[in-house]
């Protein structure tokens, strides 16, 4: 059994990298945040369902999609956590899965609030 990696020192959001990725296009960033706020809860719910029903293939696939989304948003910490969840799904590793999911849920909340704060700040 592989222990859950400690991501606590990793930043929630790498803002400078994110701005580089969108080439400083604030309008695009706002659009992406909008897509994220719409899609993330749906994908998270899907992941929660897969974990609850021990659907390891579903965990791997949904984890993979979430990882792509979080990576593109430079949400480094949440991306690392979901990468572990994806790996657990692929390796059929049940132990630690619920803890990892809880960590992701918490990181999601933190990420959303950080994104909201940034967007509010940039609108000033």
């Amino acid at each position, binding site marked *: 059994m592989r222990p859950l990696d400690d991501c606590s020192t990793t930043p929630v959001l790498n803002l400078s990298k994110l701005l580089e990725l969108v*080439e400083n296009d604030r309008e*695009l960033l706002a659009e992406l945040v909008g*897509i*994220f706020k719409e*899609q993330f809860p749906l994908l998270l719910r899907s992941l929660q369902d897969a974990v609850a029903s021990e659907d390891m293939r579903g965990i791997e696939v949904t984890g*993979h*999609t979430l*990882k*792509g989304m979080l*990576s593109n948003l430079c949400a480094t910490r949440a991306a690392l956590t979901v990468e572990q969840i994806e790996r657990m799904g692929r390796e059929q590793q049940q132990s630690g899965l619920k803890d990892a999911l809880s960590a992701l849920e918490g990181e999601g909340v933190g990420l959303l609030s950080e994104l909201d704060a940034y967007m509010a700040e940039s609108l000033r």
Partner: protein
Amino acid sequence: MKILIAEDEAMSRRLLQKTLEREGYEVIAVENGRLAVEQLCRPDCPRLALLDWVMPELDGPGVCREVRKRPELPYVHIVLLTSKGSKQDIVAGLESGAADYLVKPWDPEELKARLRVGQRILQLEDRLVEARETMRFKATHDSLTSLFNRGVIVDLLARELTRTCRENGSATVLLGDVDHFKNVNDTYGHGVGDEVLREIARRLLGSARSYDFVGRYGGEEFLIVLNNCDSAYSFARAEEIRNAIANIPMQTTIGPLQITMSLGVLSTLDWPHSPVEEILRDVDAALYLAKAAGRNCCKIAKPQVLSGVLTEVIRDEVPRR
């Protein structure tokens, strides 16, 4: 330039789309592999494609395999985009037919640079295809008139004979020879002779239908295959073509020249199951008859009388064409 993005995750898709639109690409974005294959199998498909590996319906390597199975399609430069970064994954991705591979999270500058590499490869491919097509044209067409050359027009005739035989159809074969062409060359020079041949080619093409075949058979001889043209219309079509040459003087650098053509006419209905060599021999014999009859006319090849008449004509020494 058109580019296809196939990515199931909405945010990545939008981010890629915007990044590439800023670079001047015309972006087509789809959300699964099946839709990507549909786009890439269209005749006007994008020549650049950026495919996510993990997608619903069909994954990125699956899309590559589907596209590479269709060699008739134009070459598409496919870049796989994925977080699968192990050596085995890279090998599997490239083996599936991808031309390049980019690991997520991607860097916008690296992405653009790799697509520019793709564009350079496509430009090179276009140049090679163009060169191949030029070579193909040169190998199949007469350099002076741009009509089919002798080898090709005879092959096309043989193919048409097989088709008419199989389908109980008919075709008309015309062999035309420019009257007194040697005099044109001797009197005005070969440059003017070439002008005349080019103008004849232009008029023959103008008189033929898009599905007929026109070729330069020899020096001043032209072979025309009129597809789906039965004997009832053969002579009238041959006369139209003869008139197209004779009715209007040809404009040349030394002034207008009155040029005429004699034609042998053969309907394949009268030569069932005959090989191409026999058809060519007999339409040539009919052409001899047209020359013997005073030129600037058409003579129909008739199997039952041709051999006897021809023997007589040859004995009487038909004037050289």
